């Protein structure tokens, strides 16, 4: 046992003295969360729009007012005629133009029917779609306010409610994703590099000739990275709660234990990588290609798995991050308990046991 702790202590020295790597390890979750939270977002906020108001009456200015106070639109540009439409789009800043024809208020009150045109920049279909939906919702809202007093026959009101994430915040989906990514990187990549480093430096030769058991060496190597990963989990959770306003609705303890489980899965993967490679570069390459890519692409947090071709859907089941992502979403965002994630948890445990067994078996007690 004393030998074991001496090894763990030595491992901490390695990590602590390599300040650059330590900085990257601990800084990575912070930068990732901030980049994903504030810079890389697919939400539409403060989109620049232009107003082409031919009517200029009470109703039209009321509508324009309503548009510009919403946080989705920034309606500062005012156009005066149709000739200006194309040049404005060509400049590329304006994403949508609201065109209100003449006699808008009049048509609305007396003709019972008024027209409004929305011209969107379709070069980015997703943004155009989102913007037109938001705008339509605001217009519908405006209409409802006007016709409130009138009772129309046959009318269907759609009430949309977004469960768990009423504001459709992107953070709700990327926080679990970033968590999976960071844990995979720190645990798997760093452990594999740490073990391969001993092989490269030749220290493995002496370690092997010592009475230390391979099992002990492997576990002692993994423990510091496990602790570091848990620090990262806590950092991510703190940032998401206090900076991104993503709540932890479920049990914190359950969430942390699942985090620990996934950390151990990743460690086991890292150990496996280290036992089949002999140089740090190869270990890093395998970690990046073999773990980073599947984790981002096939875990479901960037691209929905349901839309993928069947072979990819089947493959995604082999990616541990997919299961962890779903566990974190269920616990953190939906606030559900273990009874809703036991299947995913069991799969992760199974993967961990398998990977650990394989890497212990593959760990060489000799040099070749």
């Amino acid at each position, binding site marked *: 046992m004393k030998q074991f702790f*001496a090894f763990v202590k*030595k491992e901490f020295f390695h990590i602590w003295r390599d300040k650059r790597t330590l900085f990257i390890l601990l800084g990575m979750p912070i930068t990732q969360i901030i980049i994903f939270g504030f810079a890389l977002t697919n939400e539409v906020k403060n989109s620049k729009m232009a107003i082409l108001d031919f009517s200029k009456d009470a109703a039209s200015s009321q509508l324009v007012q309503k548009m510009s106070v919403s946080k989705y639109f920034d309606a500062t540009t005012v156009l005066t005629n149709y000739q200006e439409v194309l040049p404005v789009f060509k400049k590329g800043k304006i994403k949508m133009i609201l065109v209100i024809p003449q006699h808008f208020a009049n048509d609305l009150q007396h003709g019972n029917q008024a027209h409004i045109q929305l011209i969107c920049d379709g070069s980015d279909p997703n943004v155009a779609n989102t913007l037109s939906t938001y705008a339509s919702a605001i217009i519908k809202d405006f209409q409802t306010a006007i016709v409130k007093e009138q009772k129309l026959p046959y009318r269907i009101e759609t009430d949309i409610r977004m469960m768990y994430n009423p504001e459709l915040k992107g953070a709700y989906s990327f926080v679990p994703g970033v968590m999976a990514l960071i844990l995979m990187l720190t645990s798997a990549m760093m452990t594999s590099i740490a073990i391969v480093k001993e092989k490269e*430096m030749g220290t493995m*030769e*002496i370690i*092997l000739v010592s*009475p230390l058991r391979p099992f002990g060496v492997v576990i002692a190597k993994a423990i510091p990275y496990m602790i570091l990963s848990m620090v990262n989990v806590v950092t991510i959770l703190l940032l998401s709660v206090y900076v991104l306003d993503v709540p932890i609705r479920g049990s914190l303890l359950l969430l942390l234990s699942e985090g620990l489980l996934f950390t151990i899965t990743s460690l086991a993967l890292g150990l496996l990588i280290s036992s089949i490679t002999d140089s740090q570069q190869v270990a890093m390459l395998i970690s990046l290609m073999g773990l980073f890519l599947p984790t981002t692409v096939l875990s479901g947090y960037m691209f929905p798995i349901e839309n993928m071709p069947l072979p990819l859907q089947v493959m995604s089941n082999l990616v541990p991050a997919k299961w962890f992502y779903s566990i974190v979403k269920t616990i953190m965002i939906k606030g559900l308990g273990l009874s809703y994630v036991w299947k995913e948890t069991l799969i992760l445990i199974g993967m961990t046991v398998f990977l650990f067994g394989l890497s212990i078996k593959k760990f060489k007690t*000799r040099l070749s």
Partner: protein
Amino acid sequence: MVKSNSNNMSAVIVNNISKKYKVEKSQVTALNTVSFEVLKGELFGIVGPDGSGKTSLFRVLTTLLLADSGNASIEGFDIVKDYKIIRKKLGYMPGRFSLYHDLTVEENLSFFATIFNTSIAENYDLIKDIYQQIEPFKNRRAGKLSGGMKQKLALCCALIHKPSVLILDEPTTGVDAVSRKEFWEMLQRLKAQGITILVSTPYMDEASMCDRVALMQNGQILAIDKPDQINLQFSKPLWAVKAASMYNLLKTFKKWEAVESCYSFGEYYHVVMKSDLNGSDVIKSYLLQQQFLDIEVHQITANIEDSFMALMNKSHD
């Protein structure tokens, strides 16, 4: 579990060990039926050029590599079956500096002491002489030590658990002459404490400091004996020859049928003639005939390097 052994005097017994490597589809024989015995408390040297199989042999003995055939035992324990016991009894210093560069001298030593289930204090006597020399730098990172100090620290780490057999792979390669001399003096002191030492070196001059040496080449052992005995095996007279134009001299010797072997040694060529008769006169007159100037020829006694060259040539034939 202590095993009885046929020869209780032997600390290391190597019996017909062979090892082949695969290097890009072709097979390389690293060890070819190597056999020898090292007595208890002996300082046994293995001398051979780079690539002669010294490191492979040591890796087999330290249980790091499995031999293709043959067997070996250390202190009576089989290197394959009882590898766990052997790993407790062995002190091993690999050819490459294999300590943690980012740990200090003291941290390295105490780490290796702990993983071998002991402490620096417990076996301080054994390493005292060596450790005192590097103790002023005990808070320096091992990566920042000079070559000689690194080797001393590595030796301390290999010794800290009081091994009964110490295996050192080229401990003096890349170390300056003064440190090399010190290092060998340390080995002599360790030997005096009863530790069996198996050491390899590419330097012929170091061979004479061993009790016995094995000359190794191409994975084979050419000869095993006491250093001066090996020199006695050198049967023919040896001539040191010098002339004004050394390069032409070498070419001349290579062409001359009467010469058995010729190689450079310091400022002389060491020449062995096919016939023992009157070598000095024969060489002088031949060289005069070839119009060499400042000719100098005198007989010398063979040293270990001459013996090694002779044995190497013999194994080539």
